[in-house]
């Protein structure tokens, strides 16, 4: 129990630090969100009014404290009958979109989650399977072909593969929809149909990473003494693989998987852009283009929370987190 509470404490500390840094850095940005709420034509007096209403007239530390307390108690902007309510957990309020950031994230998260989880399942299955086959058949043509393909796949940026996929399967062959998202609740078939290409693109590249990881780990483990002993005892290769190989390989794979999935859940910026999917990544890019600081801060914090949570989950599973440095280009840029 103390271990769990220690982890929780650590998570909260990390989130606090990240939120503070994000807040300080972003609020110091050259853009002034109040200018957008000033209307046209804008006058200095009205600009000052807008700033005061949005809370940007306070000192920075006070703004940060209001932001933090807002997460637990909610916030109210303005003091008259026209005040804007942002219920707890309030991650800020987007005056541009007229909605609390928490609500915006909740609206967009299903898209990103559908994309991330579906792709993750695919790449895990594909990657581990390919890696295992490669390890078992090491040195054969199949192994070499798989490994060569996997270097090529990790070298290809996901968005480029996505665009070329769209060009071929979407525009030229007209086999899959070129954009958009249909909620699962509306039509499961359309949901999957719209997601199939993004899933494949994301999965293909990550699967390559996992195949390489699985293969290296497996060969490493199979070279260990206890496996040799098991073999010497006459256990069949399949049993050795199942009982010793895969189980020991699982640790680093789960570690990577947790981190990759965690970072993807915070927004698959590039994939969402390529396939015009209204997820968290698109929300972020949209906010970025409009200097919607509350949204940028909120999403950054949310994605950090996803990462930290994934980190903690993995950590709790394994005790010590010490994945070997394998290949560098991981799923972060997806």
């Amino acid at each position: 129990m103390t271990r769990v509470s220690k982890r929780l404490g650590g998570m909260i500390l990390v989130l606090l630090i990240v939120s503070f840094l994000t807040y300080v850095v972003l609020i110091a940005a050259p853009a002034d969100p109040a200018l957008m709420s000033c209307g046209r034509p804008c006058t200095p007096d009205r600009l000052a009014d807008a700033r005061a209403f949005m809370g940007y007239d306070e000192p920075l530390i006070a703004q940060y404290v209001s932001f933090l307390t807002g997460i637990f108690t909610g916030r109210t902007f303005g003091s008259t009958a026209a005040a804007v309510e942002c219920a707890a957990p309030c991650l800020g309020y987007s005056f541009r979109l007229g909605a609390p950031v928490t609500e915006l994230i909740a609206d967009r998260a299903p898209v990103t989650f559908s994309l991330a989880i579906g792709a993750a399942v695919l790449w895990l299955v594909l990657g581990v399977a390919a890696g295992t086959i490669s390890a078992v058949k090491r040195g054969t043509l199949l192994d070499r072909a798989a490994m060569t393909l996997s270097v090529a796949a990790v070298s290809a940026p996901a968005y480029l593969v996505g665009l070329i996929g769209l060009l071929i399967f979407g525009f030229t062959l007209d086999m899959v929809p070129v954009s958009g998202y249909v909620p699962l609740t509306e039509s499961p078939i359309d949901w999957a149909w719209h997601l199939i290409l993004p899933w494949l693109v994301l999965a293909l590249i990550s699967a390559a990473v996992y195949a390489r990881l699985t293969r290296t780990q497996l060969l490493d483990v199979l070279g260990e003494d206890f496996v040799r002993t098991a073999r010497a005892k006459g256990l069949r290769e399949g049993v050795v693989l199942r009982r010793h190989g895969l189980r020991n390989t699982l640790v680093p794979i789960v570690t990577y998987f947790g981190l990759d999935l965690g970072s993807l859940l915070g927004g698959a910026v590039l994939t969402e852009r390529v396939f015009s999917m209204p997820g968290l990544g698109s929300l972020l890019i949209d906010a970025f283009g409009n200097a919607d600081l509350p949204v940028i801060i909120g999403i950054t914090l949310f994605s950090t929370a996803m990462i930290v949570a994934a980190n903690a989950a993995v950590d709790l599973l394994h005790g010590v987190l010490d994945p070997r440095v394998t290949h560098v280009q991981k799923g972060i840029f997806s």
Partner: protein
Amino acid sequence: MTETAPARIWPRLRADRWAVGGATVAALLIVAAAAAPLLTSTDPYTYDLDAVSGSGVPLGTGGGIGADHWLGVEPMTGRDLFAIVLHGARTSLLVGVGATLVAVLIGVAVGATAGFAGGWWDALASRTTDVVFGFPALIFMIALSAVAPPEIPRLLIVVLVVGFFGWPPIARVVRAQTITLRHRTFVVAAVALGARPHQVLWRHILPNLLPTVLVFGTMLIPSMIGAEAALSFLGVGVPPPTPSWGRTIGDAVSWVQLDPMYLLVPGTALFAATLSFNLLGDGLRDALDPKLRELRR
């Protein structure tokens, strides 16, 4: 693996066909980037409005391929795509190498001190490494690009931001190896003879880290190139008119049906660069650690 000196890496590397191929392509890219002004008849900024139609579409086949423009032209401007791609290689390599240097500097500083000092510093440094390693780096890069003061050159910001999120893998390897080195006889002896910690670190540990750092640094270059391209693709990287593969790919998105060459040319360049550096990096790693090599083949 600590005994491996550069002199022993070299023959192993030469025996690796894929690595040699990667190194050749990477070297060609570097030469082409350096000699870009000599190889192109025009710079990547000059307009050629006669090469596009009144509505900006490249005239002729394959996006305007012809004697004047070997790989066609950019829609709307008629700028030479070959020149853009070659000069774009400069941007990519500059960011790739620059950001790697930043990452290596931070990574070695954090990893070596953590591994050498141990204790609370090690604990703190390792946790920080874990956290930064798993960070939604792209999201942070976008956020940071949004707030960087306009006075600082964008290219420098991109180098720093991309490099900053690249150091954790280096720090991990360096830390692990520093711990091994710390227990080696020559280090233990130096300490016993009364050498100060910073002397030990500087004279005995760092020189022995060099091969590892070189290898893992090389392996970092392709992902740094990829990160710059991703940022520019999203429109938050290197600003125009500085040529950048990622930005051209981003611009090509809406032209993909009408002028696919506009996407394929910079796309191929980006893929070739990442692949060649990846192959070279893999080969270097295997040469450094023969055990892995045996496993691979």
